[in-house]
């Protein structure tokens, strides 16, 4: 079947097998390999991308379901001049990544979280990221990075 998806602002059109998953469409058709596959039970969140601005696990969405819609991956977060998104900058500043495999999904889940809740508490960050596994960082610095990148961070009451 023919699928047309706007990926990071560019239209990607391809003939794919009906069962093609969105993550494989992104990796093998759009050739954007940052988004990783970390499990086969929708448990780990490594494949998290934004679909029409909301985070989804792209291993559990068919490419067909994304037809005519907009997808943002971590490659699309930097602006035209290559400047990193505040969440990406915070991840670097706080050492919130080690091996990097969960990172693209973790960043996209964090972007989505802060979009919904611009000034989360630590507990809210931990709860919101429950579906994104990281095996390296112990989450400590990921949580710090998300709190640091929160647009409403200055309004947050000290805990």
């Amino acid at each position: 079947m023919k699928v047309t998806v706007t990926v990071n602002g560019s239209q990607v059109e391809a003939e794919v097998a009906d069962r093609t998953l969105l993550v494989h469409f992104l990796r093998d058709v759009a050739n954007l390999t940052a988004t990783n596959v970390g499990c086969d039970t929708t448990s780990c969140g490594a494949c998290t991308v934004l679909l029409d601005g909301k985070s989804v696990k792209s291993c559990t969405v068919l490419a067909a379901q994304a037809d005519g819609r907009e997808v943002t991956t971590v490659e699309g977060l930097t602006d035209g001049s290559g400047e990193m998104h505040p969440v990406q900058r915070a991840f670097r500043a706080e050492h919130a990544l080690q091996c990097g495999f969960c990172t693209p999904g973790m960043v996209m889940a964090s972007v989505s979280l802060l979009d919904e809740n611009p000034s989360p508490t630590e507990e809210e960050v931990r709860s919101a990221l429950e579906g994104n596994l990281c095996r390296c960082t112990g989450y400590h610095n990921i949580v710090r990075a998300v709190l640091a990148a929160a647009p409403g961070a200055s309004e947050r009451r000290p805990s």
Partner: protein
Amino acid sequence: MSILGTRVVRTEDPRLLTAGGTYVDDLRVPELSDVARVTFVRSPVAHARITGMDTGAARQAPGVVAVLTIQDMDDLTPPPPPEPGSEVSEGAPLPLGGPWSEPLLAVDRVRYVGEPVAMVLTDDSYQGEDAAELVSVDYEPLPAVVGIGSALQTETLLFPDTELNVCVTSGEATDDAIFEGCDAVVERTIVNQRLAPMPMEGRAAAARFADGKLTYWVSTQNAQITRFILAGALGMDPGTIRVIAPDVGGGFGAKVGIDRDAILIAWAARRTGRALRWVETRSENLVGMTHGRAQEQTIKIGGTRDGRVLAYRLDVVQDTGAYPRMGGFLPFLTKLMAVGPYDIPNVQTASRVVVTNTTPISAYRGAGRPEATAAIERAIDLYAAEIGMDPAEVRRKNLIPPDKFPYTTPTGATYDTGDYATALDKVLAAAGYGELRAEQARRRERGDVVQLGIGLASYVEITAADAAAGETARLAVNGDGTATVYTGSSAHGQGHHTAWAMLVESELGIPMDKVTVIHGDTDLIPEGVGTYASRSLQLGGVAVHKAALDVKDQARRVAADMIEAAESDLELDTETGNWQVRGDPGTRRTWAEVATHAGADGLVAFVQYVGGAPTFPFGTHLAVAEVDTETGKARLIRHVTVDDAGTVVSPVLAEGQRHGGIAQGVAQALLEEMVYDADGNPLTGTLADYAAISAAELPSFELIPSETPTTINPLGVKGIGEAGTIGATPATQNAVIDAVSYLGVTHIDMPTTPARVWAAISAGADGRDNTENGEAQ
């Protein structure tokens, strides 16, 4: 000021954050442009004879390039016959050969669910999954041997040419004379459960064989060891093999070298002439990648009523799974580290290793040392409970004092440097130990549903246990003033590129952003060992440091020639990276000028650093847990640690190592376990079932800095990679037990799930010993 010890952000991150890493599945290199996918057909049963296999339907399926079985493996030299007397080993070979040999593809028998039986090669991965389903294998079931008790008692043998399922025995621990004179003695058997290492990237490999040369990309902790393994397995000259480790998505010990599945990718590429790629699924990973831990330990501890420990016994039975890989060796590290940080005069250890119809066991973050610490730290708490003394006080009374270093333990380890009591006291002070105990008392008095537990673990561990194997570094300063480091260490998340660049900047004044670090390519770095056992900084890092010193000496001679001054009059300003006659900026020469003057073969140093000895990091972890006494649910609410690994080169990276290790350590205490049913079927074979720990189950951690340099190496550094899993597990387990100890509970096996905690509380309330509650599932 030196950059060492300062908070530097990583050089690796911009690429990983904006474009993503390049893991094996991401490689889009020309050599793999026609790459086919490999899908394994794996055994769905734990123990069976293979009586037939039909690949006909699979071969006809769309996209199938080939289906390979043991019948196709006619191009390999069979392994040598067993040597006489190799049936049962008294030593620690890894892996065992002879009658315990592990084939590449199953021959006529399968021994665990997930064992590779056949390979399906297809144009794409979806076709591979379809075609693998069409391979029909006839299995004649055999009784499954699952669990240590079963392995020791059953008449079913995994390996027909052996007499027992015990493949390694070492030492005896039966002489009770060491406990004579002890007023209080406690003994019990505890379980250190089987875990899945579960790096976020599973195993993956790609291979191309062309013009007599094999190019092999693999997710590994050691490119050079991988090349050695491939050369042996495939009967090839190592010079005809190039191994490349691209970005690696975590390893945790389970990617040391390569295993049979990964060897098969190289073999199949040579056999078929087709470039191949294999990237395992998570469900494959959880049964196919080696597991860790899996020990049953009988501990016995005795001492005086006033808290002096006089004798300790550790008897280990290691489940090594279906084949004796590194699992056969792990108990030796456990026994070596048996006494932990305590000055105990009489110590006895013994171990046996058994095979079972489960996934093979190998290294997992700590590899034998977390097991040692879990045993002694449980023993100390059991003894403290027996004599009615505060567990912190018992620890303080028995810690090796600072004036006894270097200290040689009764098991033969020589601890280099340490200040164990200070680590304990710092943690107690930072946590507010007295106030925590007061809060615990208040909750008990009020009869709160949610009770508080405080758990301690003081530890010492061994890092770079194989220091004698050393590590390599080659450092070149280039004509444009940049530097290139070729390291034998192998990065998979630790931040080697940042740390090695810091070492170069510190010594040479060449800024980090002008230092390129290259690892994991055997064409560029033929000699190297790689990363495991917390060895990188103290071996590979020291090699870089020494290479920098060597290059500096060379540059001094060249600069002296350029400036026409005596070498002894020259100085290197490491702030600006310039050479000059001391106090005379007019004579200044940049690194670019000096390197250009030195010529093409100019400023290059190769160092093969052989470490003097292993080092022994130490520390104390304190965990605070809340336990809901109605549901048994335990939750970690605070975790306070001192992890002293000598001089800290990068505080940011060291903290990151501690954080990650703590999370995995807590996960073992509270949540994670690979569970099999009695027939050897894995019950936790997907991430929907295996309880990998998430952000929601952890607090932020409270890390206290502490640096006691070692004298073993010139940087004063020890390893920090495994401290977290060594200290956090027993501290958390002890905290959960402490929370409910007032209800008569003395022990709960890990993971301390709600069901187990609830069962222990119920047994305690009835006045029953809760010894058996560890069996509750």
